[in-house]
C-alpha cells in the first residue's frame, strides 16, 4: 500500500469527542485510552473528505476513492459491496499542543514520545535524509528549545532560561537543541511559507510526563448553557462543559491507498492519495459544534519526499 503522512493544523478549537462521559467534563475529547493522547479518528477525517466532494459530478470517482455508499441506513443497508474503497485514513495523533505562557502568549509544546511517533509516521515515507533524528530524552520537569535566541516563550530568572506553561515553571536547558531545530524546520515545510518560523519561535520540548499532564489539563474547556427563549435566562439542567483542542494544535496522521477497485474508475494509488489530500492547505471542518465555529482545520502534507511501497 502506498502511504503519506499528513498534518492537521487546527485553526479554531477542535472538538472531536466521545459523545458523553461520566467525568468532570460532559463532552470530553477522544483520546487513546492507554496513553491519553488526543486523537482525531481516521473515520472522522475520511467522512469529511468524502463530504467535501459531494458536489463533484463524477460520483464514480469519489466512490472509487472512498468506497461505495450505503444506500439505506440500519440493517437493511448491510449489503456486501462489489468493491472496496481505495483510501485508508489513519487516526491523527497530537503532535504539538499550544499551551498558554506568561511570555510569548503561547508555546507549541511537544515531547520525545510524540516526536518518536511522528518519526515512525514519516519512516519510509520521506527520504532518510529528510527524517529528523530522535531527540535526546529529558529529565523530569525539564524543557529544551531549538534556539534560545529566537524562541519567543523564554524568560530568564537569575540568568537561567525558563518557560511558564499554564502553571508549570520549567527550567530550560541553557543551550540550543539542534535536533529540535531540524524538527521545527522539517515540520514547518508543510506549513504556509509565512508561518514557517512559528515552530522555531514557539516549539518547546518537555519530558513525556509533563506532556501527559498537559494533554490532560491544558486543553480548552468551555462551559456552555442553553438559553430558554421564553424567559431569556439559562434553561434548567442545560449547562454543560465541552473540551476542545485549542486553535494552532498540530496533529499528525498517515493516509494509505491501494489502486482503485471500482469497475469503471481505474486510479493508481498515488492518484487516490493526491485526490484525498487535495491542494496544499485544504480547509476542512472536523468534529462537532460546527455551527459555533469549531473544528476548522488545514490539511497539510509534505510536497517533497515520496511514498513507500507501490502496491
Amino acid at each position, binding site marked *: *500500500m*502506498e*502511504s503519506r503522512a499528513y498534518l492537521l493544523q487546527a485553526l479554531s478549537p477542535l472538538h472531536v469527542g*466521545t*459523545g458523553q462521559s461520566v467525568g468532570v467534563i460532559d463532552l470530553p475529547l*477522544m483520546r*487513546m*485510552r*492507554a*496513553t*491519553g493522547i488526543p486523537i482525531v*479518528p*481516521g*473515520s472522522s477525517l475520511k*467522512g469529511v473528505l468524502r*463530504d467535501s466532494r*459531494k458536489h463533484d459530478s463524477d460520483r464514480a470517482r469519489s466512490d472509487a476513492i472512498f468506497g461505495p455508499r*450505503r444506500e439505506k*441506513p*440500519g*440493517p437493511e443497508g*448491510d449489503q*456486501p459491496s462489489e468493491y472496496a474503497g481505495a483510501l*485508508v485514513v*489513519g*487516526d491523527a495523533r497530537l503532535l504539538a499542543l499550544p499551551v498558554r505562557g506568561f511570555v510569548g502568549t503561547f508555546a507549541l509544546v511537544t515531547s520525545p*514520545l510524540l516526536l*518518536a*511517533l511522528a*518519526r*515512525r*509516521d514519516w*519512516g519510509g515515507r520521506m527520504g532518510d535524509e529528510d527524517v529528523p533524528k*530522535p531527540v535526546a530524552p529529558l529529565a*523530569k520537569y525539564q524543557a529544551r528549545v531549538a534556539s534560545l535566541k529566537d524562541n519567543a516563550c523564554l524568560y530568564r530568572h537569575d540568568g537561567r532560561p525558563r518557560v511558564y506553561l499554564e502553571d508549570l515553571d520549567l527550567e530550560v536547558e541553557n543551550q540550543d537543541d539542534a535536533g529540535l531545530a531540524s524538527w521545527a524546520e522539517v515540520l514547518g515545510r508543510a506549513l504556509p511559507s509565512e508561518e514557517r518560523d512559528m515552530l522555531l519561535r514557539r516549539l518547546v520540548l518537555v*519530558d*513525556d*510526563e509533563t506532556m*501527559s499532564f498537559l494533554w490532560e489539563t491544558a486543553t480548552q474547556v468551555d462551559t456552555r448553557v442553553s438559553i430558554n427563549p421564553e424567559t431569556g435566562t439559562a434553561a434548567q439542567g442545560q449547562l454543560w462543559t465541552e473540551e476542545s483542542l485549542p486553535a494552532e494544535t498540530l496533529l499528525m496522521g*498517515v493516509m*494509505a491507498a*491501494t*489502486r482503485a477497485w471500482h469497475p469503471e474508475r481505474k486510479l493508481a494509488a498515488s492518484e487516490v492519495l493526491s485526490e484525498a489530500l487535495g491542494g496544499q492547505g485544504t480547509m476542512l471542518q472536523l468534529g462537532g459544534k*460546527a455551527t459555533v465555529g469549531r473544528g476548522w482545520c488545514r490539511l497539510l502534507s509534505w510536497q517533497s519526499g515520496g*511514498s*513507500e*511501497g*507501490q*502496491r
Partner: protein
Amino acid sequence: MSQDCFVLLPRDGLSVKDGRGWYTSEVGRGHSHPWPLPTTVRGALRAAWGQDLMTTQPGVRMTPAEWEQRSAGVKLTRFVALRRFFAESPFELAHRMWPFPADAVLVGAEKGPVGRVEHLLPHRPAAGRSASTLGPDEDSAREGLWHPRRVSRGKPSTAPRFWSEAEMVCWLLGHDVAVPQELSPEQRTDLHVSIDPSRQTAEDSMLHSRQVVELLRLEREGEKAPRAVEWALGLCCEQPERDAVRGFPSGVLGLGGRRRLTDVERVTPDLFACPPEFKPKASKGLRLVLATPACFARGWLPDGFARDAGLYVGSLPKVAGPVVLRAALVPRAQDVSAWDMVKKEPRQTRRWVPAGAVYFFEKQRGDDFTAEELRALWLASWGGGHEEALGQVLPGVWTPPPASGA
C-alpha cells in the same frame, strides 16, 4: 520455499470483529477479539500478496476467485505476540509474550490484591470415588483422565492475557514464577455515527460502537517517568513457490476491521527459535502449552489420539513412540467465524482450542521424554490448520505423581 519474517506494528490499534452481529443489542455494537486471530492476519497477508503480485507483474489482473485460489499458497508459519519499549532496539527473544497457561492459577493473598502463582497439577483419579461421566462414548477413557487440583484454598484472581518470555521459560522448566505484572493491551470503545449529507445531522439507526485493542501504552514503574510500550505481531510466512513476490509485503498493510494501518519491520527467523535458556532435563512427563489456538477434528481431543484400554493413546510430532494423554486443561472453546470474500457470505464457523490450553502426557512404555525431544517441540505444529500457524506448542516438563503404593 522462501520464508519472509516480519513484525506487524498496528499504528491505530486493531478491531478484529468476532462473530457477534451488529444488531444483537439496541445499539449496534462491534465486539473485537482481544487479540487478532492467526486466520485474520493470514487473510490480510493474502490480500496484500495479491496486490503486490499485480503491481510487480504488469498485466496480471485476478478475479476474486483467482485471487482466492492463487493466494492459498500464502501460509502463516509463525505467529507470536511481541512487546517492547517504543522504538527500542530491534525485536529479540526477550520481547516475546506468551498466552497465560491454563495450568497456572493466580491466587489472591490474604491481604492485598494478588499473592502468588500456583501450579495446577493433575492427580490420578481415586478409584471408585469420582462421579461417572454421562457421555455417550469413550466414558472409560474420559474417566481415566487425571483431574487438576489446587494445593491451597486462596481465591483465584483474574489472570493476565499474556506473560513474558522469561516467565514462560521458567514455568515450562517447572520452576515457580513470581506474580506477573498486568501486561495486556488495553481496549477502548469507539463510537461512530453516520451523517446524512443532505441534512448534516446524524442518520437514524446509524449510531454504532466498535471495540479497539490499543497496542501502545504508557507504563510506569514506581516513581519513575512513564515509558511507552508497544505491542506487535511477529510472524513468518511462505509465499506460493511459482508466484513469489520479492520484498513482500511492500509498504503498510491494512489489518482487521476498517483496514487499520500497520507498519512492517523485517526480522530474522531467529526471533522464533527455542531460547538458549530453555535447557530441560529428561522428564517422565510432558506438558504441551498451546502458543496459538489449535484446530482438532474432535474438539478438545488432539488429532491422532484414540481410546485404547481406557486411555487416550496417540503420537506427538517430534516425539518417538506412543504417548498417553493424562490430562487436558482446556478453557472454553474459541468460536471463529469468517467472511467469504468470493461468495460474499459467511464461512462455516470453526471451534478451536484456545491458546493457553495445556495437555499432559506420559510415554506409554514409561520412557522419559528426552531433552532433545523437548527442545524439538518448541513451536512444533500440532493438529490442523498448519497454514494458519494453528496448534503451535511450547513444551514443558512435568513430574507425574507416583501411583498409590508405588
